[in-house]
């Protein structure tokens, strides 16, 4: 089956419409002001703290993820099995 661009476009339009209607129709609960100084170092520090305390488990999982993708990628990319 060939790729049907107009149809794909319509599908995407549908998706976009739905998502945009969803987001714009929502009254988000936002803070009144954004942090003024983008260079505020507390952010990075906070991230670090979070990653190594609360999110240590995902961090550990990420280590396995990287290892797994490493193995997988190397295995798949190795050339011995070609043709």
């Amino acid at each position, binding site marked *: 089956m060939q790729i049907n661009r107009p149809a794909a*476009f319509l599908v995407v339009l549908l998706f976009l419409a739905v998502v945009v209607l969803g987001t714009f129709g929502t009254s988000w609960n936002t*803070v009144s002001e954004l942090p003024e100084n983008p260079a505020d170092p507390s952010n990075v520090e906070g991230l670090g703290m*979070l990653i190594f305390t609360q999110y240590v488990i995902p961090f550990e999982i990420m280590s396995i993820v990287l290892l797994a993708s490493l193995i997988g990628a*190397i*295995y798949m990319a190795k050339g011995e099995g070609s*043709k």
Partner: protein
Amino acid sequence: MIPLNFYLGLAALLFSIGLYGVMTHKSGIRLIMCIELMLNSANLNLVAFSSYTDTLNGQVFALFSIALAAAEAAIGFAIFMAIYRMHDRINLDELNLLRW
């Protein structure tokens, strides 16, 4: 202050572009790029929310997802390489041995 919806709208648009690419491109490389685009648009969402709700979880999430996107791209490229070795090209719409 830029309204939150501007970010969200942008993210949605980027995401949709990514989707359109996935649906229409034959090339595996472009496909992975589109997927990256989608993941990143989601990251954009996360970061925007993180700022607008003044919580850091979103940014942590985004960090992890960037790493995941990288891993995913690695695997993806590896698979396409294997396909390329076999077929000498990566035209995804020609891979339809498995169907029906």
